[in-house]
């Protein structure tokens, strides 16, 4: 760049804007990426209580690690522009015309396109191959069944305004207000509803499945460690929707057997009145007497 001073052409120092921006950005990325992966990553939700939750946590770490450099690039350009190129005069004049740069545009499209395609491929692999539905409801005929699905422990999740109850068909079909599952055991949640649409969200397990009347929505989970997990309804379902919350438990297999026995005894009085176990139930009665 040159500047004409009188009749003399004086070379002007060219600031290396591009390298300053990229250099600043690289330094920030070099600092932030290890922090994201090593410090923030282990605390990202939903945790690692189950294989499915772990896959979701991995996805959150990867997405955050990819998102932050892009966000930092935008921020660095913004701040640099604000500091270096701001108008220092009171006069308002038009800036220089903006001209496209084919090479930069192509590079941007290629990089962002590659990121999106890579994430789609990785997400699809996780959803279908490695995580078998990623803890989501797959409907009555799951397209992606994990190994040993035919021997999974079936637990029916029944949504109703405004409570969750749970049936254990392998243990005589008893029903309970409490949810407990054994660790290191493949569990098949069969989620349904008796009235409006709810959504069973076992947050710590990474399970989320719509509860729809007349539908048996199957979601698989394999808990890795014992402890408590939060249960919520994730579908606005009426007055007390926000109260459809409770804690579930992952127990050792022996602990689960003992719990099931106690829960069966606790709820024995109503057993003879329960409907025979079915994948779903008609929302009856529909009438009101009187």
């Amino acid at each position, binding site marked *: 760049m040159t500047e004409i001073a009188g009749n003399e052409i004086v070379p002007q120092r060219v600031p290396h804007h591009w390298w300053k921006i990229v250099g600043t950005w690289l330094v920030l990325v070099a600092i932030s990426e290890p922090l994201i992966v090593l410090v923030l990553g282990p605390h990202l939700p939903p945790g690692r209580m189950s294989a499915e939750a772990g896959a979701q946590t991995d996805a959150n770490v990867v997405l955050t690690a990819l998102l932050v450099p892009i966000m930092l690039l935008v921020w660095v350009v913004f701040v640099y522009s604000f500091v270096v190129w701001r108008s220092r005069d009171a006069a308002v004049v038009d800036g220089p015309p903006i001209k496209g740069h084919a090479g930069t545009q192509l590079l941007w499209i290629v990089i962002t396109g590659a990121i999106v395609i890579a994430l789609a491929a990785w997400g699809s692999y996780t959803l279908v191959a490695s995580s078998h539905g990623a803890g989501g409801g797959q409907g009555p005929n799951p397209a992606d069944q994990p190994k040993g699905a035919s021997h999974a422990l079936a637990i029916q999740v*029944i949504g109703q305004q405004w409570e969750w*109850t749970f049936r254990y068909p392998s243990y005589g079909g008893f029903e309970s207000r409490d949810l407990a599952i054994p660790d290191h055991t493949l569990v098949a949640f069969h989620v349904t509803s008796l*009235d409006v649409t709810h959504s069973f969200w076992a947050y710590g397990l990474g399970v989320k499945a719509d509860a729809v009347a007349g539908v048996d929505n199957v979601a698989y989970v394999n808990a890795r460690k014992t402890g408590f997990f939060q249960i919520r309804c994730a579908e606005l379902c009426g007055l*007390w929707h926000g109260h459809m919350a409770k804690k579930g438990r992952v127990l050792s297999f022996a602990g689960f057997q003992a719990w099931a026995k106690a829960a069966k005894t606790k709820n024995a009085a*109503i057993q003879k*009145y329960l409907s025979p176990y079915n994948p779903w139930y008609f929302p009856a009665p*529909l*009438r*009101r*007497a009187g």
Partner: protein
Amino acid sequence: MTTRVRLALVAAGIVAGGALIAYYIASFLVVTPRSVAASGTGKQAQLTLQTVAAFGHPPHVDWVTYLAREPNGKWVHSTVLHVPAYATVKVTVYQFDTATGLRNPFWGQPRGTVGGTINVNGKATNVLNPDDASHTFAIPDLGVSVPLKGIADNAKNQCGVAPCALSMAHTTTTFVFKSGKPGKYRWQCFVPCAFQFPLGFGGPMQSLGWMDGYLMVG
């Protein structure tokens, strides 16, 4: 019509719409039924309730509802109940409605009561035939759930206007529970008893002061 007038009409419409929305939200958030305190002294409290098939008064003449009795004996159309913390609460429910039946039979077993039983018309029991249930009194966060037996469909002298006198056809359910730590606990009915509403769970089943309420502990 000039542009200025048109703009004024549009602005007036927006203001009116905003005011209606604000009124609706404020009505939902602010308006709650009056609180009814339990009778009794110290850590012994008594609550007396009744359920009626049709309230019989405006604004919803035909809505099913609960009522609560104040310590002075006056029946109040409220479902906000106040009991002491860590108290033994004896509840008496006079039930004047016929049976609808439980959608989930599971709620036919009383839970969270002292001894795991309830007393229906003077007889202790640990289960009610779900088809005989007219309503439930359930405080899920305290683990309390009690089914209430309905009167016969052909019972004589049925009550149609609240409050109902005990000379009219009714069942009486009594039970005892521990109130526990201070807090605000929602309670509800699990029977789909809202006549003419989708799945029996609209109207009074979605409204404080009718078939839902709060138990204020402390």
